[in-house]
């Protein structure tokens, strides 16, 4: 029922923050969740609804999920990247904090469907982990995309 969407599902167990929500994603609020004096770098990836797919015009994307399982998967992915302090990273963790949010339901053209934000002591680790986390989400997250095309021939992925 789009008029009465289920409540957002968030887990905030510092240094991880993950969630699924039908509301527009809050970029500055999510970045603030990973901010820390120990970080020299914050890397953010936002997946947005593009107006075209295989030369067809996209009206919107819609995402469905198996929410309790997807939330657990987000938590597991995020936690797996919080590693103990090590010599290699100057006595600090490879990354400091991580946030992953996925929007559900319709996501209009130009708006965000996923946010991955990582803070790290150094930029190299920030880039590396943010990209890894995004790819893991694409492969493992129990969230599915529906493309509503202008011609009406939506395509499940």
């Amino acid at each position, binding site marked *: 029922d789009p008029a009465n969407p289920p409540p957002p599902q968030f887990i905030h167990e510092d240094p991880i923050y993950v969630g699924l929500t039908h509301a527009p994603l809050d970029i500055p609020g999510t970045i603030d969740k990973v901010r820390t004096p120990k970080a020299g770098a914050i890397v953010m990836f936002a997946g947005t609804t593009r107006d075209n797919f295989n030369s067809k015009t996209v009206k919107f994307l819609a995402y469905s999920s*198996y929410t309790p*399982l997807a939330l657990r998967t987000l938590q597991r992915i995020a936690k797996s990247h919080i590693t103990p302090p090590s010599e290699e990273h100057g006595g600090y963790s490879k990354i400091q904090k991580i946030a992953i949010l996925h929007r559900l339901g319709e996501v209009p053209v130009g708006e965000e469907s996923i946010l991955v934000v990582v803070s790290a002591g150094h930029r190299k680790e920030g880039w590396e982990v943010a990209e890894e986390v995004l790819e893991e989400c*694409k*492969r*493992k997250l*129990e*969230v*599915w995309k529906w493309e509503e095309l202008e011609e009406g021939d939506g395509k*499940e*992925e």
Partner: protein
Amino acid sequence: MADTTSAESESFKILYFAGVASFTGTNEESLPAPLPITELFATLEKKYAGIREKALNTAMVTVNLDYVDIEDKTLVIQKGDEVAIIPPGMG
């Protein structure tokens, strides 16, 4: 003692998503329990002819939020369990 079991209490819940739900025409239904996990896909194929090849072969299965091996002969879906057919992710 009176028989207090009903069709509902002797069933498990199964959830369908994305392409699988398009095939079944529903997101959720009840099926009779107990059911060995090894028989799940055959049971679904009997109900939805063609679903195995079209949707199940690339899917995974969870029982109560844990991924399971559908060839695990020791695993039997119990009444009240929540089973889900998980199609591949967004890629």
